[in-house]
């Protein structure tokens, strides 16, 4: 006999609005129906009715976790249109912010995943480390979320104390290397909940356009920081961790290894932080007008590729702002990954794609 089990529209684990209806035969999931849009705010519509400076503030509110990548992508697209070239120091600062944001997002997801697995000790460990990242972000930008760092032609604030960022990296790397990675890789409890669970094959991931750690855990080598470098990423050495199992455990491992790579990038970005200005000279009164044309910017957000396409008609208000977020692509894979799985595993499986509903709905 089939049962229809609704989860949501307020997800109990992720604490975000989203509805998943699972059709089960006994304990086995035989189908799933997803409903999104509960967070729909019409960001694209709003961005096309505000000037470019207001647009930066607006798009930073697409998401509370990866807010920086939205303003970064938007500014990069506009910089292509108006020819503004951010100074080298600003490009390094953009990398520092982006990697700190990736770290706190990955710690957040790892902690939530650990909690769903039933491993609350790791949840606490992840959130303890995440607080240090949040402190660093707060020290640099003055904010724990919505940092307000990006501007067209550079960044708004300098890093006053680069050494303070380096100081937290030792502790983070130690925590990741000695606690998180060994447990995600070798712990029997984690393996029993995650190994072979919620498999997304490489073929299916590609067909669904999956991006970010979800795709990389299914064997797809894809990272905008390497494939189409932006900011100062082409100056730094780092690896793109890839796993091929495509299960929940592979996603855990990819996230953990990526945190180590973020620390590695941060060390290089801070060590080679050049002197000089952090933004281009403040423009004249014509600053609000952007030459006509279309530009596209792609950034590797914590959850994968973000795309901004900005079309200008020569005025101070963009004609079109297209925002394609990573979770918009990744969410649709959930149906495939829960089919044939145990009902009890469904919350973990759907959370393992690291969904952000604010990004999805915009």
């Amino acid at each position, binding site marked *: 006999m089939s049962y229809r089990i609704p989860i949501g529209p307020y997800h109990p684990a992720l604490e975000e609005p989203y509805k998943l209806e699972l059709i089960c035969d006994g304990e086995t999931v035989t189908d799933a129906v997803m409903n999104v849009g509960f967070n729909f705010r019409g960001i694209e519509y709003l961005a096309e009715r505000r000037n470019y400076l207001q647009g930066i503030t607006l798009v930073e509110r697409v998401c509370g976790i990866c807010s920086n990548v939205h303003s970064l992508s938007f500014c990069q697209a506009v910089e292509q249109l108006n020819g503004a070239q951010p100074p080298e120091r600003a490009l390094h600062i953009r990398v520092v912010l982006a990697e700190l944001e990736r770290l706190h997002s990955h710690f957040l997801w790892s902690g939530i995943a650990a909690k769903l697995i039933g491993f609350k000790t790791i949840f606490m460990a992840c959130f303890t480390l995440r607080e240090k990242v949040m402190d660093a972000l707060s020290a640099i930008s003055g904010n724990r979320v919505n940092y307000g760092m990006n501007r067209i032609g550079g960044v708004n604030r300098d890093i006053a104390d680069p050494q303070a960022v380096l100081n937290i990296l030792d502790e983070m790397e130690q925590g990741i290397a000695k606690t998180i990675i060994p447990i995600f890789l070798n712990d029997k409890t984690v393996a029993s909940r995650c190994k072979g669970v919620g498999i997304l094959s490489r073929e299916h991931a590609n067909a669904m356009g999956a991006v970010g750690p979800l795709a990389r855990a299914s064997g797809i080598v894809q990272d905008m920081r390497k494939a189409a470098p932006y900011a100062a990423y082409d100056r730094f050495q780092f690896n793109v961790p890839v796993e091929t199992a495509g299960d929940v455990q592979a996603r855990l491992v990819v996230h953990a290894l990526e945190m180590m790579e973020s620390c590695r990038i941060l060390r290089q970005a801070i060590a080679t932080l050049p002197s000089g200005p952090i933004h281009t000279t403040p423009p004249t009164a014509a600053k609000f007008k952007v030459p006509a044309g279309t530009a596209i*910017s792609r950034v590797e957000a914590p959850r994968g590729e973000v795309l901004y396409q900005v079309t200008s008609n020569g005025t101070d208000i963009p004609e079109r702002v297209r925002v394609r977020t990573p979770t918009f692509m990744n969410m649709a894979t959930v149906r495939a990954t829960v089919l044939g799985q145990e009902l009890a595993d469904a919350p973990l499986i759907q959370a393992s794609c690291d969904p952000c509903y604010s990004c999805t709905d915009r």
Partner: protein
Amino acid sequence: MTTETVDFASTLQSLGLGDGWVWNKGSWWLAPPDATDVRATAQRMIQLDARFVAITAIERADKEIRIDYQWDLDGRLLSFVCATHDGKIPTIADLCPAADWVERETHEYFSVEFTGRKTTAPLMTRAGDPLGINLHTGVAK
């Protein structure tokens, strides 16, 4: 990062689209004088193991909608510029499942009808909500 590097020039030739590409501000663009066959292009991109990235709809002065199809080929962003005819354009969701949600939201935002779809269920809005909610001009249906 990649183990294989795609020969871009050869790839474009294999697409039958060797000429007309323009690199401009973040993407390779192809805007042929006649409308690109979106389904044939999608099939070619899938054969090349390209990754579907996005569909971007932009209003035109003649009330039709410009539709940009974006694919990633080995890190290169390829944008195929197409347009609706009488507000319609063929679906590619049956060829490329990744396009399903994008077509559904484009239908909601710009009232574009993707022909050949069995259904176009609401994604961001709810059943009965008006279509074309992102249109600058015209009245949402």
